[in-house]
């Protein structure tokens, strides 16, 4: 239930503007890969190209290759909807559907895939997904309440439960803790450590300690200046990246000299 992604020479454009240039990267299965870098360097943009969410923005397009276990994510006959069903996403701010109960939020993605699901199978899936997101014990008595009644950190874990309920191959996380307090952040980080035994995880983070704590591999993105495209500077095992990076820019960034 987890696949590798290979990206080769990927450019991302917004209209005529080249936002990210020439990314080549291997994302290993059952590992957490962290994307770090200063604001505007294109790491979130790049993350969104992995499940084609960038296509939501008018004029956004991609050249280059992105393969998931050899299957071209940008093949002519590949529907972005199918890609997103295999590559789940968790956003910067918790976004449970406000009109749905906690239980319905978990089932939201599954209901898209197959309408009819026996009641007890639904119950099992709700419990399994919420347990998987470390939320079950907190919400098991109030599954019928709206998702927006939870705290921010709980909402974010509900979003993770919703994402893993459809059993994706890959889980993308776009700064999942940036809107959360330290305790909730810790809960999410513990969860990531558990999830990576089942899923390929790619996480964008502004927080270098977080990257060091949760990821196995780290990729550093940087930007030469405003209006210039973001680039992948280097990528290595997290331990190596934080102890002896090859590039000066990486060293400057992780030691807090800029960014």
């Amino acid at each position, binding site marked *: 239930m987890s696949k590798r992604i290979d990206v080769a020479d990927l450019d991302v454009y917004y209209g005529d503007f080249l936002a990210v240039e020439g990314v080549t990267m291997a994302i290993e299965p059952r590992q957490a890969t962290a994307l770090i870098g200063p604001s505007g360097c294109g790491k979130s943009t790049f993350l969104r190209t992995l499940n084609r969410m960038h296509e939501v923005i008018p004029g956004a397009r991609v050249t280059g290759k992105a393969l998931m276990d050899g299957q071209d994510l940008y093949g002519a006959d590949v529907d972005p909807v199918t890609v997103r069903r295999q590559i789940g996403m968790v956003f910067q701010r918790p976004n449970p559907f406000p*009109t749905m109960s906690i239980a319905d939020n978990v089932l939201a993605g599954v209901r898209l895939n197959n309408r009819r699901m026996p009641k007890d199978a639904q119950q099992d899936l709700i419990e399994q997904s919420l347990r998987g997101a470390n939320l079950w014990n907190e919400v098991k008595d109030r599954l019928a309440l709206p998702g927006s009644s939870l705290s921010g950190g709980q909402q974010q874990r509900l979003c993770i439960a919703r994402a893993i309920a459809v059993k994706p191959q890959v889980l993308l996380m776009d700064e999942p803790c940036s809107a959360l307090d330290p305790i909730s952040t810790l809960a999410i980080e513990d969860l990531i450590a558990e999830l990576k035994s089942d899923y390929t995880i790619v996480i964008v983070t502004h927080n270098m300690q977080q990257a060091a704590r949760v990821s196995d591999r780290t990729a550093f993105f940087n930007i030469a200046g405003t209006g210039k495209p973001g680039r992948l500077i280097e990528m290595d095992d997290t331990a190596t990246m934080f102890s002896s990076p090859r590039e000066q820019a990486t060293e400057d960034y992780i030691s807090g000299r800029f960014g």
Partner: protein
Amino acid sequence: MPVTTTPPRGVPDPAPSRADAGAAVRAASTGRVASRVFAGLSTGAGLLILVTLAAVAAFLLIRAWPALSASPEELETVSWFTGGSVAEYVAPLVFGTLLASVLALLLAVPVSIGIALFISHYAPRRLAQGLGYLIDLLAAIPSVVYGLWGALWLIGQLDPVFTWLSSTLGFVPLVADYQAPAKNIMSASVVLAVMILPIITAVSREVFLQTPRLHEEASLALGATRWEMVRQAVLPFGRSGVISASMLGLGRALGETMAVLMVISPGFLFSFFLLRPGQHQTIAANIASKFPESSGLGVSVLIATGLALFVITFVVNLAARWIIARRAEYSGAN
């Protein structure tokens, strides 16, 4: 780094620099007076609403009272009066008013939601803008023009449709026994539907456009198609807005006079034969048609029917608020 597509907001002008402290003090004190004047004006405007509402209600009650308290014998003296009491007279009118408006709403709401969704989520931006203007233009057409259009053109177009409906689905009482020309309540409702379409569409479109991008993306990221995203994120978010829009439309349909007056052939029955002429009449159209030939107690009876209309619109609005408030905790607001 979320990439925003919205254009940068206009930068406000920097505060004018003041020449000296005295000018600053003077500016501040005139500012305070202006602020007090403005507060007074806006409070007055707010009170004006209450006063107007009370004045209308009082007028209706006082002027309807002679009819409400009149004996059946006295009411007999009004040439066009039917039934034994004012309540008996107004009941079929209330029925006709509600029937015409509800039918219009049933026809208009699905179409409006469709147009609003097309404009907000499907159409290319330029087309959406043009279509939006067109809808607003539709709202600006005077109702008497709609009446003319309905009476002189639409009725002719509906004739074959009604003939077909009545002959194929005639076993359903609702559409049985169609009689040409189509001066029936269904034609009136179609005209009303066209009239309330713009307001429902415009309000729904605004609400749909306000769907948080986060919720739309949540849905898309789960692998929703555009239609599934609309059903999962946009429609639930816009639900209360669509209800408000429908109630606005219903309010307009309830009070509409000219279009109904010119299209329908009136009757005073509790009838569900939608395609027969001479079955129904609405309160507003009835007032307009009877008022020129009425005096004394007759006017009072008409005002009493107006009071009934007033109460209906009040109840409709209360119901709408109740529906919206009932699921407030599920709304997109929090």
